[in-house]
């Protein structure tokens, strides 16, 4: 067995040193009858056989590489530079543990410090943590953090919030029967949440651009929150948008949570991704998750350590700010490397391309009979309304070898008002030819 290091002779020698006659003697504490069950599973296989099995499964999927592809809704297809995947597969990054021994983990610690800096910069916030599981769990943690800070319980959730985020928040709050108010679904992008904020409100969670693509100025909402002593939590599901649009920090957000997948992390059928979490410096001790900080070693040289860990579960136990134990280390590394390659000029250009292509497609679609583009202002994703149910249209497009978007009914099942709504995302990976194919196919299908 290629991954195991002991030979039969080694095992005999080791048993002799231990002073037992068999390996099963080491399992003597296992209750009678429970040892060595018969398992109905296949025996071991070589690399070739395993590769064949996976290749067969992969072949049953339609790869976005092979067809015009317009899906988004919280996960986006972007080009990842070759250097990213090469670097994250280096042994020293891939096969190291959490940097609890800083003297031999400066590599991980320094990139976490750089990651925290990059996230702070693009969100327009003062500090960021070393990442969470994903955007949705970041949003749930943000609500808990706002409750700790305000000592209030109620959360107001925007009707433009991605339903997976809304449901993840709700699941966690339900555990302790905390109240949350989900505003009505906001397809039009004109909801006014200020009327839902009262003196029991811990926070308002709003997504920008929202799940239907609407891009909104949140400054007045931030003021309304502030007036009532509530915090504004802004969720961003498409992080490349911040290369082009005003960051939440500049609009008055208190906490920014985001899905970082768009930078450096492959789609991978939904995970693992990387949750970003940024806030104001004054709230740092209420922030969940791992944090890396700068210090010096005993020779006075700059170095990095995990810090403020008295907030965390391994020390604080039941009084910790969160139960979270890992971050999304390797995905955070991929994000950091990709962002380093982009730099200021690259990120700005990338965002311009995404937006420009989305505008081009929106204009083409708006010319079609029976089709309307919903948001006036958007980044690289927008909802359109169709003359018939979107789910069926998407299935018809599959037959034409096009992955044509996400029907809103997939995210809002049972909501009749959204049955004809299709979410379309456009990124730098889409060619003009892809767009023309989509428009042509839609003309046939509608």
């Amino acid at each position, binding site marked *: 067995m290629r991954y195991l*290091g002991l030979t039969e002779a080694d095992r005999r020698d080791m048993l002799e040193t*231990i002073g037992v006659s068999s390996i099963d003697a080491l399992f003597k504490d296992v209750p009678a009858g429970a040892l060595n*069950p018969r398992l109905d599973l296949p025996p071991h296989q070589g690399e070739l056989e395993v590769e064949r099995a996976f290749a067969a499964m992969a072949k049953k999927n339609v790869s976005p590489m092979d067809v015009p592809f317009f899906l988004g809704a919280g996960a986006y297809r972007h080009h990842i530079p070759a250097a990213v995947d090469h670097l994250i597969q280096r042994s020293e990054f891939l096969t190291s543990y959490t940097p609890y021994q800083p003297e031999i983990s400066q590599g991980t610690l320094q990139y976490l410090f750089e990651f925290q800096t990059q996230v702070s910069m693009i969100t327009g916030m003062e500090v960021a943590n070393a990442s969470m599981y*994903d955007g949705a769990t970041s949003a749930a943690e943000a609500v808990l953090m706002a409750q700790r800070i305000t000592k209030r319980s109620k959360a107001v959730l925007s009707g433009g919030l991605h339903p997976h985020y809304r449901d993840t928040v709700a699941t966690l709050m339900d555990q302790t029967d905390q109240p949350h108010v989900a505003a009505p679904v906001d397809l039009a992008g004109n909801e006014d949440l200020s009327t839902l904020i009262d003196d029991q409100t811990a926070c308002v969670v709003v997504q920008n651009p929202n799940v239907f693509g609407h891009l909104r100025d949140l400054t007045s909402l931030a003021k309304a929150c502030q007036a009532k002593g509530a915090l504004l939590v802004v969720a961003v599901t498409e992080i490349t948008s911040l290369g082009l649009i005003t960051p939440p920090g500049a609009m008055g957000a208190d906490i920014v949570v985001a899905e970082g997948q768009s930078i450096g992390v492959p789609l991978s059928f939904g995970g693992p991704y990387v949750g970003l979490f940024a806030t104001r410096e004054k709230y740092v001790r209420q922030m969940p998750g791992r944090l890396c900080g700068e210090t010096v070693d005993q020779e006075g040289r700059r170095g990095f350590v995990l810090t403020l860990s008295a907030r965390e579960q391994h020390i604080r136990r039941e009084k910790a700010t969160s139960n979270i134990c890992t971050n999304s280390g390797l995905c955070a590394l991929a994000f950091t490397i990709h962002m380093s390659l982009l730099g200021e*000029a690259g990120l700005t250009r990338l965002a311009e391309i995404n937006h420009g292509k989305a505008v081009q497609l929106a204009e083409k679609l708006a010319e079609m009979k029976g089709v309307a583009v919903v948001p006036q202002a958007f980044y690289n994703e927008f909802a359109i309304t169709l003359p018939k149910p979107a789910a069926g249209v998407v299935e018809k497009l599959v037959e034409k070898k096009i992955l044509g978007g996400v029907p809103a009914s997939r995210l809002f099942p049972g909501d009749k008002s959204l049955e004809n709504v299709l979410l379309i995302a456009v990124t730098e990976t889409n060619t003009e030819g892809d767009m023309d194919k989509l428009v042509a196919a839609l003309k046939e299908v509608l």
Partner: protein
Amino acid sequence: MNRQGRPTTPHAAANSAATGTLTGNRGLQMEEALLFEMGQDGRTGVDLPDAPKVKDRLGGLRRAGKIGLPGLSEPQVIRHFVRLSQKNYSIDAGLYPLGSCTMKHNPRLNEKMARLPGLGDVHPLQPVSTVQGALQVIDTLAGWLKTLTGMPAVAMSPAAGAHGELCGLMAIRAALKARGDVRKRILAPESAHGTNPATAALCGYTVDPIPATADGRVDLEALQAKLGPDVAAIMLTNPNTCGLFERDIKKVADMVHAAGAFFYCDGANFNAIVGKVRPGDLGIDCMHINLHKTFSTPHGGGGPGSGPVVLSDSLKDFVPVPYVVHGKDGLTLVESGDTKSFGRMKSFHGQMGMFIRALAYMMSHGADGLKRVAEDSVLSANYVLASLKDIMSPSFEGPCMHEALFDDRFLKDTGVTTLDFAKAMIDEGYHPMTVYFPLVVHGAMLIEPTESESKDSVDTFVNTLRGLAEKAIAGGENVAMFQAAPQLTPRRRLDETRAARSPVLRWKPGSNGAPIDKAAAE
């Protein structure tokens, strides 16, 4: 006050000569600036075409001013991260005996499979007809997990071990609620991982510790005394964090069930029994499985993990959405509309990239190989215990499971602490074992060699520890060596107190090249 004896500022006396080179580099050990200190405007590591010329539709929300990101070329970026990587210890470089973390070999086949076109690049919201292979991966892995644990159901979406704990407790809460039962207390041993009480608190439970017996197992009498109609569940790690199999586990299950409570088993240490013992035969109700421990998905410097949760018949109706089911047109996903489900825990369907890696590992080992994994990991740990019991101080009688627990009695009155001992291992080329955990013994050292190591490798490791223990016990001049360790690393002991008292959590413009306050460190 749980980490007595772990100094957080370097020993004052333990300084040595500085590097003495002009660059600060020491041969292959390169000093490396922060990205933000090397960037220049007008440089980039990507070539992108011009953006389409369109009238923007940003609603007046175009970003004003610069972000501040540095401009770097591709070679600069590659060199930066390669140099950083060289400051890390890794499994690929050496034995990584971090108890409770299962630092086993991470096969590269796993990585290759996770990147196959059609698996690594599919979108989670593609029509299910276009992702039958992806759903098959999830379904097949679920099948292996159920068979290996002897449990009827598994929730696949939790993103990590602690997230799995949360899933288990949420399912328990939902099951209690469904029978109109409100319970407020969770029992957990004092030796539990910190995530157990933290998770219980997130779900609104109070945590009541159960004491251990002198031989490191749950005290059944104390457990009986703590059980009552307000106890929702027990959270018990098996094998436990002292590296011992809870030999009364079936009695524990019976007692807990008799009180109307559920049995949450923390599966962090499943590696010791995989293929060898099915937790389902021991009476548990749910257990999370850290795919990054037992099933070799890479730790990646702290994640991402993946923590599927197996569930008993009494809990399986309450699984989180989404989950995969067999439909008439093949596999499909239930994403909503399940009224018994306790809800959703994260975006999309779980850590697919980790599922692929774990399944590739399982298929490579097969049933026979996985059993061998458990056996060899337990054998190696007992070999370490037997080889060092005369000089270091084992906390409990053997046999142990996949990790051997020592405490600091052998260092008593030497002037060398557990931390010093661990740091001296670094100079010898080893990552230290887990130190100061579990909290139930003084100055804990928890050693998990894993099944990946050859006997030669374990022998060298054992001989090194023996040599260090002899040095510590001999005392005298050696004490200063321990207190000064590590001396051969890219950085020496770091000042954690300074980091926490005035936190610097990001680089800021203007701090570029700021002189480091050397005087304060000395």
